């Protein structure tokens, strides 16, 4: 009975966002058909999806893999970087206070403004985009992780003191696992920030990548292809987010 109920809840959790999305697409389809809006401004969703299926392999796949590589490489560097920086900061209140404003500043800076400066120094290389992703994802992972590292109940610290645990043991067996929910919040936000940063980098240093494609299609009034590319970008972010959320469910089992 309980298992059946769990299954129903799980199914409802999957279906609810899909139904909501289908409703938006349906409404958009009706709006475009009824309003007679110019297809160069807002193409019908079925046209956008048609273009996506027909032309993805030919026109978008190369840039898709390029952007995916940028996002994944940058994100994979940002994870240990962000968590490592948070671990260092958590060892000293003063260091933590000194670094936090810089981290917030980094989160606030749009990569669109930083990439041209990086290009001036490094040229139009893929590393510039990866650095942009790292600079955007690392601070958000770090800030959330740091907040998790600070939220340790004093009674838990006393438990570890009562058995004479070392600082390293307290960190690895208490502070780090205790912070896992916040670490995963940072990782999930990091997925979104990585995708946004990669797009910003593409737009500012455009010779390849999905952001460059969006810019090019919009410029030549191929709005349907521009939207199709935006969907691909959104899908990268969503899938990355979902993968991390699934890993979180497997690891953070104590929070329902």
């Amino acid at each position: 009975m309980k298992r059946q109920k769990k299954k129903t809840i799980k199914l409802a959790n999957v279906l609810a966002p899909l139904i909501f999305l289908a409703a938006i697409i349906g409404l958009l389809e009706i709006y475009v058909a009824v309003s007679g809006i110019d297809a160069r401004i807002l193409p019908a969703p079925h046209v956008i999806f048609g273009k996506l299926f027909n032309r993805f392999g030919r026109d978008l796949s190369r840039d898709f893999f390029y952007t995916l590589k940028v996002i994944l490489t940058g994100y994979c560097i940002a994870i240990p970087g962000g968590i490592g920086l948070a671990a260092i900061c958590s060892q000293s209140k003063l260091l933590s206070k000194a670094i936090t404003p810089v981290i917030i500043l980094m989160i606030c800076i749009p990569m669109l403004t930083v990439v041209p400066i990086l290009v001036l120094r490094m040229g139009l290389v893929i590393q510039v985009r990866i650095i942009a992703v790292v600079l955007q994802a690392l601070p958000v992972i770090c800030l959330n992780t740091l907040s998790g590292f600070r939220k340790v109940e004093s009674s838990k610290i006393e438990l570890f003191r009562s058995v004479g645990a070392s600082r390293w043991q307290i960190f690895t067996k208490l502070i780090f696992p205790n912070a896992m929910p916040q670490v995963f919040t940072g990782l999930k936000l990091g997925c979104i920030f990585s995708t946004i940063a990669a797009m910003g980098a593409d737009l500012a240093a455009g010779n390849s990548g999905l952001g460059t494609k969006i810019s090019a299609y919009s410029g030549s009034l191929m709005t349907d292809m521009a939207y199709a590319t935006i969907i691909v970008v959104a899908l990268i972010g969503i899938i990355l987010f979902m993968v991390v959320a699934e890993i979180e469910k497997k690891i953070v089992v104590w929070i329902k």
Partner: protein
Amino acid sequence: MSFKNICKVFDKGNDEIVVLDDISFFVREKEYLCIMGPSGCGKSTLLKIAGGIEAPTLGTIEWKGTEYKNGIPKQQLKNFGFVFQQHNLLEWRTVYKNLHLNLEIFNLKGEEWEKRIMEMLKLVGLEAYPNIYPHELSGGMRQRTGIARALVHNPDILLMDQPFGALDAITRKTLSYEMLNLWKKTQKTMLMITNSVEEALLVSQRIIIMNKQGKIVYEIDNTIPVEARNESIGSNEEFIKLRKKLDGIVHDIQK
């Protein structure tokens, strides 16, 4: 184990708060000693000092013939097991892994220690739940896990800070009887803080009472025979006499 002239002073801004004022007492081997006192009298601080969690400002602790000035050193903590008021289990570890934590910290490896985890779980009636997470357990079961964890590394002395304080009345009573049985079975030295007169009379051999100023004001020998400590203890003459005496003392020190 004996405590000699223990003082604990906390700095609060420009003020100094004396929590423990010249506390001296001893705990006999295999004895079940209870400490009682009003809230804020420093009994939890005293237990933390006994368990090496905090160091005294002044005074010494004598343990196994050695006097320690700055509290119990790390290498001696293996001899102590600490039970907290709230279960204090690690939510991300199963019951088994929570017990395993002490073995990891004390570096106790080998099959005999792994076996001991199951023995301790059996002792507290949780042998069927080794792979359950704390959030899936009831309050009483969590506290039992906390007790099993404190015993798993086979300490000489068990320190308990109001271990049943956060539980409902029925579970509290059940666990008090279980604790008494546990003491009979394991013959460990037990030092327990409690705010319940009945609980103290049921389990202890001696009761120390502190006042609000952080001083020991009474020491009472619990003369109720161990055989009489069962469900009908309430009708035992000695119990009635001691309860009346303790109720009076507790009432007096609250003033």
